[in-house]
Structures are given as structure tokens and as C-alpha cells.
């Protein structure tokens, strides 16, 4: 793990009780990152949506059924023990995806990618998408493309970058202002700023003054039961997806509803009952 105190650890917490599933984050992401669209986008396996909103249900029958929405960007995994060996990074033969030890962001370099899609197979969150076709915009629409993000070509994999170009802009701005600090609101992802419900909170998990740090309260110690799992939240309402895999995502979810928290992982019979009450890490109380 990087010991440099200055290293950032950008992360996100999404309040599933505030999320209305409106899709603003998805569209904001598509508009920000030059994501194309096709005539038919109903095959969700080839529909490029870096930020995808899933609808989840408690599985009960009428009238006890309950539903909620779960937005899923790239989880920016730190890998086992948070050493930067994210599932996708370790399998990439082209170093087209890499772990940024100074930001905690998992990058994707399109021009290096040759489309083997190992990373897609390795990703437990289906956060990666393959460009089966070249992007085509209807006549004139390419005029709205942003110069900050290069449009991708067929044959490469793409995914959420935590709007890395916004980080670059914020860094340039900080350099221009002759400061070292990047203020919390100077670097926010497109989905965060778009969310009309304010359900997404983005910031530096390493910075105690950032809102995300205060909500997530990341545990400085590894999980005593599973040393691969670090940065576990000490907030009992906060969870991560498939946390016990040890992928150490930097995207956290928050809900007061137990059934939603339980959906964060696959539990064997009785397992949930054991963990649900000391959900955060064992050291949190």
C-alpha cells in the first residue's frame, strides 16, 4: 500500500434510499464521456453504459414486494489488500488498464487495448463494455462531442474512469492557482453533479474533511476475519458489492433497508444473520 500521505483514494458512496432510478447519472455520463448510441439499445450486454442503473427487488410477492435502484459505475477495485491488483488490471496483457496508486482510479487506455476482453471476464461487476462496432453519430450530432474524452473505436474495451479528465482539469486549475490542494468540489464526477436527488457523494476517502470519508468512515485496519478486505466501512448502513471477494471497491452503497444491504453479496443460508449486525468491520464498535 502506498504510504504517501498525499495519495488520494477517490471513491463514491451512493445513497440507495435517495436514488429514484431516474437515469440522470447514466445520461450525464454518456454526454460527458462521448458514449455513442445505436438504433437498438435493448440488448443490455452490448449497450455501452459506464453507469448502469439496475432495478432490484426483495423478491416477495404482492403486496409485500419492494423495489429499489442500484447505480453501478466501475467499482475502481483496489484488489486484494488494496495493493492495486484489481481483477481487470492483473489480467490485462497489454497494460491497457492500470491502477493509479496516486488516485486509486483504474484507468483504461483505449489505444493500447487490443480487445482480448480478459478484463471483462475478470470483472465481477460487469462494469466493462466492449465496442463491437465503431461509434456512429447521426449527421451533425458529432458537433456536441467533448474534446476532453476521446471517442473510442471498435475493438476496444471501455469503462467508467471516475471522469478522470475532470481530475486532470482540477489539477491544472490547482497548478494555475499555485496550490497543492484539490478542493472537494473542484473534482466531482459527471454522475455526481447530475444526480437531482443528491444521492451520489464523491470525494477522497483518504481525506477526513471530505464528506465521503465522514459517511463511509473507512476502517484503517484490514478485516480481522479476512485480511484481503480493507477499507471496510464502519457505518453499519454502508456496504460494498461482493465485499468478501476482497476486490476492495471504492464505490460504496448506503441504505437503511436491510434487504437491499443483503443484496450486496451472495450469502449462504444463515450467513447473513451472522454478519448483518456487525456489518462494518469487527473493529467498528
Amino acid at each position, binding site marked *: 500500500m502506498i504510504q504517501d500521505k498525499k495519495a488520494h483514494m477517490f471513491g463514491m458512496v451512493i445513497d440507495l*434510499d435517495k436514488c429514484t432510478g431516474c437515469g440522470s447519472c447514466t*445520461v450525464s455520463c454518456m454526454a460527458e464521456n462521448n458514449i455513442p448510441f445505436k438504433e437498438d439499445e435493448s440488448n443490455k450486454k452490448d449497450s455501452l453504459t459506464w453507469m448502469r442503473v439496475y432495478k432490484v427487488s426483495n423478491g416477495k410477492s*404482492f403486496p409485500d414486494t419492494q423495489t429499489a435502484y442500484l447505480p453501478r459505475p466501475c467499482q475502481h477495485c483496489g484488489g486484494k489488500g488494496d495493493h492495486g491488483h484489481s481483477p481487470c488490471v492483473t489480467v490485462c496483457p497489454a497494460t491497457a488498464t492500470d491502477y493509479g496508486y496516486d488516485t486509486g482510479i483504474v484507468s483504461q487506455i483505449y489505444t493500447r487495448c487490443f480487445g482480448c476482453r480478459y478484463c471483462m471476464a475478470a470483472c465481477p461487476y460487469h462494469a466493462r463494455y466492449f465496442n463491437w462496432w465503431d461509434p456512429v453519430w447521426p449527421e451533425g450530432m458529432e458537433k456536441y462531442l467533448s474534446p476532453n474524452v476521446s471517442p473510442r*473505436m471498435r475493438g476496444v474495451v471501455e469503462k467508467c474512469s471516475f471522469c478522470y479528465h475532470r481530475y486532470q482539469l482540477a489539477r491544472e486549475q490547482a497548478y494555475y492557482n499555485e496550490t497543492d490542494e484539490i478542493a472537494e468540489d473542484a473534482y466531482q464526477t459527471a454522475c455526481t453533479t447530475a444526480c*437531482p436527488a443528491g444521492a451520489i457523494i464523491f470525494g477522497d476517502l483518504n481525506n477526513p474533511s471530505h464528506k465521503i470519508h465522514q459517511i463511509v468512515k473507512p476502517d484503517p485496519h484490514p478485516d480481522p476475519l479476512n485480511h484481503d478486505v480493507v477499507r471496510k466501512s464502519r457505518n453499519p448502513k454502508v456496504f460494498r458489492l461482493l465485499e468478501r471477494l476482497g476486490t476492495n471497491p471504492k464505490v460504496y452503497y448506503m441504505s437503511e433497508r436491510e434487504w437491499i444491504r443483503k443484496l450486496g453479496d451472495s450469502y449462504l443460508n444463515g450467513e447473513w444473520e451472522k454478519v448483518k449486525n456487525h456489518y462494518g468491520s469487527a473493529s467498528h464498535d
Partner: protein
Amino acid sequence: MKVDRRSFLGLGLGAVAGIAISPVGAKLTDDSSIWTQNWPWTPVPPDGKISYDQSVCTLCPGTCGIKVRKIDNRPVKIEGRDSFPVNNGGACLHGIAGIQYLYDPSRVKTPLKKNNGRFEPISWEDAISLLAKRLGKIRENQSPDTLACITDTDLGSVAGLFRHFMAAFGSPNHVTMPTLESWLALTAQTLHGSGHTLGFDLDNADFILSFGAGFIEGWGSPVACFKANASRKKRDAKLYQIEPRLSTTAAAADRWIPINPGTQADLAMAMCGILLQENLFDPEFATGFKGGLNRFNAMVQQKYPLEQVAATTGISAADIKKTAIAFAKAKMPVAIPGKGRGNGAQSLKEFAAVHTLNCLTGNINKKGGTFVKPVHNYLAFPDPVQDTVARKGRARKKIAASVQELVTKVNQSDEPVVDTLFVYNANPCYTLNEPMQAVKAFEKIPFVVSFSSFMDETALSSDMILPVSTFLERFEDVPSKAGLASSVVGLTSPVVDPVFNTRSPGDALIRLAKACGGTIAQSFEWDNYETCLKNLVPGIWKALSRDGYALVLQASPTGRVETDFAFLADNPPTIQLQGDFDLTLVPIDNMRVISTVPASSPFAIKTVSDRVIKNKDIFVEINPQTAKGFKNGGFVTLTTPAGSAKVRLDFNEGIMPGVIGMVEGLGHWFDNKYVSGKGVNVHELISPVIEPGSGLDAASGIKARISKA
């Protein structure tokens, strides 16, 4: 030369060594990797100076402030504008996708005129003079009232200019589409007298009782509602949702109370009865009641006994009572009417009954309550100059009070009742129930002029299209509506020059008026729309142009308002669902699909779930219990008295047994491969039913059945 084994191997090895040493291989590999990384067909967006323009989104009645990021002169991204009184940062997906509308494949790029069933381009000058000539003939024939006009709303200066034109021309036949705002205004007018409308302080209310309003699915001003909902937990404010299916709002609510479709009005009446009987109404506020509170009370107790309403609505009597009491005992309760987005077919009885609950609690014109607001007219229109023809025509009887009625009258009459029809920013050929009736009526009307940005169903059914600029290309004042507590006017300003040969609707109308000459031209003495707008809003122009918005009512209204119960005391009938099939089809409002004008953007359609649209087929929500004998995901034929359609079944535990839900806003048939031809327009399966009290369509559903496809 003899090739033996030795020389063969020698040559072979030599070749291998040669190839290995030669730079050709490396060069070719290098070239091919360079070549494969050249993608000339992938656009490289040009870089430039970043700037931000402020404007207001007009895609829905929400009135959200937006900021548009531009690279040099290209708008690249829309985001919510911070410190705007309505949305205060944040925007919905449709607003964010707004730039796509600039270059939408279905945009009308130049004025078009239909010749022998085909649209042909025509210049603005020719189009205007042709239209002016036609209008001149109508006036020569002393029948100016055969010009009719449909606009999306009657608020704001653009709708005002259409109204002004109709007045100067001499026709009383200006009708507007039914919106949440028009329903709220009608409700306020019925209960509190004309010139009022309703606003809800949902940011502060501590108990929201929603009678099917898609509170976080596009009802009212969506972003403002999302924010009010997000702060509920912190404020400890409750939300109860009463509707037949587990909508997103119901799922987010503290309680979801499933109710039989179309019985919300009865429930609200019964709840009024409970409040009156249990003495849970505000006696101080009751002193402002007119028109027989006692008569209303007696009627409610007699016609809406709890047990009977429990049977009609499918909610237990105990539950109704408990909910009514919880509502009445809350400190700041607000009941909100309007199913789904609250536009289109709704019931005045239901709106009035729900608002009566608000009146009874006395939480009117108070923080966290319902505001009975005066409709503030901030527009200083000069009196139209009218000649004798105009005055005579204006005095004639209105053909219809609503768009629905206009369509019916045109279709029923043997003679042409309307000679020329203007349609602005409305798509009745798609949004009305039984929209093909509107298409038929439009065919029957000799000349239909569509002021439209897009080649939608209504534009396709018209004879001339005057293409108007989108909200990113023009000025417009946007008054807040749709139940917002504040009274704000926002200013939409052009962030980019018109991409195509389009004009602002105001400019088109001013030019048309000038071409008509005479008193009509005298009524439109402005040079262009921009100067017209400045002249119309003298009091607030300074604030508008400086801040992008102006508050027209500084403070929320206070004090008691008079409430007249006469309408409800007469017990207007509840609209029954048409048909005698066993199931009920109801439209679903999905936040990601626009059901009015304009149609959804490609980005919005991309986000739609594959349990709503798969390939070209639409799914309908149905409870597995109801769909016994059918397969989840299987095709069925859905039949209603209005028609039938092939749909797929989405087994869904979140919908009442016996109810089928179909998403609104799909099944477009204009030319746009990203948006059109997907699914079915639910309104084609629903027949209009006119509610006696309002004279408006109140069919919020219809009886249906499913059979093997």
C-alpha cells in the same frame, strides 16, 4: 540445379536468418500497428475555449435552470444550474440530453408544405405569404372563427402571442392541451374561484399523501420533487402512495397502499367524510367555506360510507380510517392529486376531492402546506387592435373547450367547422386517447399549420410546417407551473445560433401578423420577438436578463381563502372504466420516457429497461397471479374496446392482480430510428371518456383482456 536435402535446408535456414535480420518484418509490424491505430472515421472533437451559458430548460413544465458548457461556440453538455430557485443544481436526464435535440434526426430543417401528400421545402417568405393569403380569405368570408389554435399551455409570452393573434384575427377558438398546471388551475378555479392556481410546499410538508402522483417520476417539477423526496428522511416527513402498482414513488414511500384503478376520487371523498365526522378539520379555516359544508358533509356521509368505499377501492375500512387520521393529525400535511405526471386525461372530481382534504386540514397558505396562489400575470400585453370582422368573430361561440372536444366536433360534423388550424408545441395526434381520431380530424381540416421543431405525428398530419427553433436556440420566458410553491419566471436564452433554417415561434407569428396586414399587423407592432418580450415584461426584464430569472410573487400567499364546496356537494359521478373485460389497462409514467412533446431523446431511450422495451416489442406489467397460463416474457394479444396490440408480459409482483400496466411515451411512428417504432402507444388502446364536471377526458384506464398471440 539439383535441390538436395542439404541445399534445401541451407536455403531454408538462410531465408529464416534473412527474414529475422531484415528490418522489413519489424517495419511491417510497426506499420500495421500504426495503421490499426488510425481511426480516421472516429471523430476527433476539436478543442477550444470552455465557457458556460445560463438558460432555462423548457422540455417539461418543470422550469429548471440549466448551464450549458460550450467549447468555443459548440454546446457540449447541459448541467443543472446552481442557485436557481427551482432546481438549485441537478437536472433530469431529459434536460441533460437536451443538446441531442439540436441535431435530432427528426428535426424539421426548413419550412415545408405538403403537396399531393408529400412535404416539399418552401422558403420562409413564401410560406408566410401563402399562409397570410389563406388567412386573408377566411376574413374576407367573414368567418375568422374558422381559424383554430392548439397550444401546449396558455402561460408565457409565446402562448400569449398566439392568443393575441387569435384575438386580433377574430377567433375565439384557442384551446390548450391538458397539463398538470391546467388541472391544478381548474381545481383552484372550481374550489376557490377563477384566477387561482395551486402550489405545494413539498420541501417543508411533513406528510405527503399522494393519490397516485408520480412524485419522483416526473410529476410537477421533477428535480424539485426529487430534492424534496431526498430530504424527507432528514425532515422525518412521511410519504404515503396510493396507486395500483408499486411505482418508483410507491417503492420509495413509507407506505404503499394499492388501490383499484380509477377509484382514487371515491377514496378522497371518504377520507373527507372521516375528517368531518371525527371533527379533524380546521374550524378556523372552515369559516371560509362557502356553498354548503354541511350539505357536502351530509352527501359524503350518505354516498361514501366507509364500508362501501372499502369495497370499491379494495382498501380495508380500517386502513382508510387510519390513513385519513394520520394525515389529519400531521402538522403539515399535503395531499397531492394527479396520476402519474398529472397531465393528459385526469379527473376533476379526483383533483377537487384530494384538494378538499388539504382545505379541511386548514394547511393552506402556510409553510409546508398548499398555496392557493393568484395566477400572476406578469405579461403586459397591449389590447389587440380589432376590426369589425374580428369583433364579430370573437363574439361567436367557441367550437370546443378542449382539444379532445375539437377533434370530436371536427370528426362528427359534415361541414368543415375549422378551416385552418395552428398547432404549437403539442402533439395531439400522439398524446390524446385514441390519437388516430386526431389524425383523422387533422386530415379533415383543410389546412393545418404546425409550428414544430420536430417531424412528429402531428407535424406529419399537417399541411404546412413552420419549423421553430429549439430551446437552445431562442429566447423565451418560462413561468413556473406544475404545482411549484414559488412563482418564478425563468428566461431561456439562445446558447447557439439556429442550426437549421428555423425561427423562434414568436418571430414566425410576428412576421405572419405583419404579412396579414391591417389591424392584425397593427396588433403586432414589434420588430421581432426579442423586443416584443422586452416590452411585454417591463417590470422584470432587468432581473430576467441579469439573473436569468425573476420572482413574480415575492412572498408566498398568506391568509384564508374562500372555499366553495358546491361542485363536490353535488356529487359529480365517478368516471367508470370503459368496457366489460376482466382486467384493467393503465398507463405507466416512466421517468425515462417523455410522453408529450418533444419525444424522448436517443440517450433517454437508451436508458430504458429491457423489461420495458426489447428489440421493437413492449412489455406490459402483470401480476403472475393474473397471468396464469401465460409465460413470463411471452407474447400475448392485449385487447381493449379501443383496439388490440401484440405485447410481451413482464411478470411483476409489484402490480395489483387484475391490472396491466403499460409505459406511456413509446410507439411513436414518425421517422427517427432511435426513438420511433419501439413498442405501442398505450393511448391507442384507451378511449376517451368525457367527465361531466370538467368536460375533459378523464379516462385513466380501460378494461382489457389478454389472449394467446
